[in-house]
């Protein structure tokens, strides 16, 4: 990274959105990357400062992964990297070359059969506006896989990193509980 975060106030007292402004702009080099997303390899020529989230949404047009805060506070951008849940807004695209990335678009079977978590979200009306939903679902799949869906209390705790302003939480808990039972049996 060539940008630098200002820690002390600049001499003239004017903050500029938290990024260093030393008069000269860094000239970022372009990286040629290959990202494996939902089993497909995508070639990308991007600046090193491009996040995984912006690579997905702006370059690869995989807009199922949502940008809610862009600062790691809401969970809407949750994807899986090598099966673990990761915030795509806090991950540089260049960090995940050679890793296996799964997004909401890659969760259902190729024939369109929904993942148990997706089906349970629909059945239990575990969303309203739908904007946090891909992140909730990706988190829920990992939460179950991690073995943290053993009780409603545990589900609430391990799903607490995914904000939902519509307030679908009780229905999300019901959906995760049901999907966990189905996936165990």
């Amino acid at each position, binding site marked *: 990274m060539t*940008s630098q975060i200002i820690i002390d106030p600049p001499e*003239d007292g*004017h903050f*500029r*959105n938290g*990024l260093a*402004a030393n008069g000269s*702009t860094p000239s*970022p080099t372009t990286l040629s990357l290959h990202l494996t997303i939902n089993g497909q390899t995508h070639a990308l020529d991007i*600046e090193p*400062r*491009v996040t995984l989230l*912006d690579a997905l*949404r*702006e370059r690869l*047009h*995989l*807009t*199922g*992964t*949502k*940008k*809610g*805060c*862009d*600062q790691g*506070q*809401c969970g809407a951008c949750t994807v899986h990297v090598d099966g673990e849940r990761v915030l795509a807004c806090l991950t540089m695209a260049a960090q995940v070359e050679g890793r296996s990335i799964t997004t*909401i*678009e890659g969760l*259902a079977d190729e024939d369109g059969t*929904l993942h148990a978590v*997706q*089906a349970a*979200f*629909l*059945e239990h*009306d575990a*969303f*309203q*506006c*739908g*904007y946090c*939903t*891909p992140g909730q*679902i990706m988190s829920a799949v990992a939460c179950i896989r991690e073995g943290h869906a053993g009780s409603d209390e545990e589900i*609430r*705790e391990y*799903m*607490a990193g*995914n*904000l939902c*302003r*519509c*307030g*679908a*939480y*009780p*229905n*999300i808990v019901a959906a995760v509980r049901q999907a966990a039972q189905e996936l165990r049996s």
Partner: protein
Amino acid sequence: MTVHDMKHAASDSARLEAVGGRLSRVDGPAKITGAAKYAFEQQLEGLTHAVLVGATIAAGKVTAIDARAAETAPGVLAVLTPYTIMELRGASDWLGNPPSQPTYAPLVREVTFSGQHVAAVVAETFEQAVAAAALVKVWYDETPAIVDLSDGKAGDGIPIDAMTKEWGDAEAAFAEAPVRICAAYNTPREFQAAMEPHGLIARWEGDELTIWEPSQWLDGMARTYAEWFSIPFENVRLVSPYIGGGFGSKALALAHSAVAAAAAKMLDRPVKLVLNRPQNFTSYGGRAATRQTVAIGAERDGKIQSIVHRGVNETAVDGMWVEPLGSVTSIMYATPNFSSKQNVVRVNTVVPGAKRAPGENPSAFGIECAIDELAHELGLDPLEIRLINYAERDPHARKAWSTRQLREAFAAGAEAFGWAKRSPAPRSMRDGHQFIGWGVAAGTYPVRRAHGEAVVKILADGSVVVESSSIDMGQGTYTILAQTAAETLGVPVENVTVKLGDSHFARAGVTGGSRLAGVMTGAVHKAAGQALDELIGLALSDPRSPFQKLQANTLVVRDGRIASPRGEGPDLSIGELMSAVGRDHIETKGDTLPASTTPEERYKNYTTVAMSIPHTEGDYSRYSWCAHFVEVRVDEDFGTVRVSRVVSALDSGRLYNPKLAESQWKGGIIMGIGQALLEEGIVDRRHGRIVNGNFADYMLPTNADIPDIQTISVGIPDPHSSALGGKGVGELAIVGIAPAIANAVFHATGKRVRDLPITLEKLI
């Protein structure tokens, strides 16, 4: 345009599909697979990216902007400043009032709040625009800001005479009452905090403007763009297929919208501008901070003799917002004497705006806490005092309620909650080191009404299309309109496609005030009824129709097939009939406006709120009602409050889809829990700046904060409120939650917290 594959949503049971059935969301499959493209996720050739620069002072003047470094940064196409942005015409407001200024400057020289947009950078990529925006250097001449309501410079504000409600002699009756309570209740600045940020893509083709923007009001926002850019209304197309939450915040075209559209015009390239999360706390208004005093005088038996209410809300230095604080105070309880007055106080903030149940929400916090205080003073059960003072008719409008199932809500909620087992004394219920408190409060929201229109098409294959420029931000519009059309026409719901969120469709007024479902089910019901009449008319009278020789008076359509009511003669699918009579489609536009409505009135009806129908029109006063029962657990040592149980009984009239209505109710309750315990915009008093404008510091409820919530529908169809008998759903349930929690905390601890949010330092 949005098409929903119904195969995952369709149910086996026709009951589920009818109006009132628990059909799963028809837009659900698109949302759970990532296929749903939200407004600013459209992919356009040549798309550029804009990033805003916000003022770092709350009051003063921009004296200079040095954009040279930004302009020469890689990928930068333009830096817009107050000095370089194209001139825009002033636009009329949402009531249709003409603009106060002939021109409009979305990038300002005179700063009236921290974060106000002073410049914008447009670049080829988002990263380039972000980096270059950090290079824009702004100099200011700073003047002292009025930071909030308690600022010494704020003063008493401006009286809003339209808010005054008085009958009897409230002050005298209060002075003479044998039992009196009087207290002040405060709510902080709160934010809508929809998960989808505000933003848009703007594209010009000649003098035609297309805007992809999350919107609660396509036609209202299209009017604003048309006026800003001096182009005909028809030249603006707004597209908003899905909205990632609005809660009142996404009904108006805002300054950042104007910047993006102006940049697109100036560059002749499509521009995408999305507010970053901190900018979502400063670029549009949340709920204004409020102050109220409520004085109640009562007889010793609990009968209220007088209510004296005074309220204040903050507004902007250069914009007006009135949060009607006497709205619930004036109707919840029967009282022979009443007085409510309100002022607004100007502070250096972005102009506050609508957040879920504006007015009713803080109003209920005041009166529903005050009645609880009165109950305690009198030694009465909080539920009993509400029944003693039950308003049998609207005490303000002096009209009969259309329907008021509040008594039923109290009874059903108390029964399900187990209220009878409540130990009356504060601090008398505990579980180990936790105090347990049980609280109750009521809520209400008026039935806001308006005229609407919809297009219904029957296609050659018998499938049905419903079109409207109304929107679905999670309330379930796609689903309930599919149910309405399916039931009215007699076709399976999977044969119905609902298209929303494009201003080229049939017009629609604002989706706000919990009015959309009532307005739009009425319009779709009417349009579908007309389409059905036309279909049956064709079947009976077209010489090519096999029904023509039947000489029947009418036919019925059931499960997509047409037959005579008694089952004799032909039995055709709609598609077979359309084919027989040689029609490729039937199209009807139904609206609920009077036939005499002029084109100008139609335009006004859909692009302003000036033609909304009062909820007290005619013989009735129309409201939704609810009663919340809440259990809290308060840690004896640390003062931490956890809501452990909620039972709410609600009267929203007839529910068009209980599954979705329950979700909205729970969502309102959860937002209310956030309001009660967590949410507060904190202003740095030195700089007048919101310091917690992000999701880590402005705390929303998380999954771990929310217990099981039980909702009970006690509504009955209300024919005076809407065509199909429903009343408002979306805003109702948040009203009354914060006071129910405050009352429960008092019961748990004996401490009365009158300032939201109820945080631990207020309890220890």
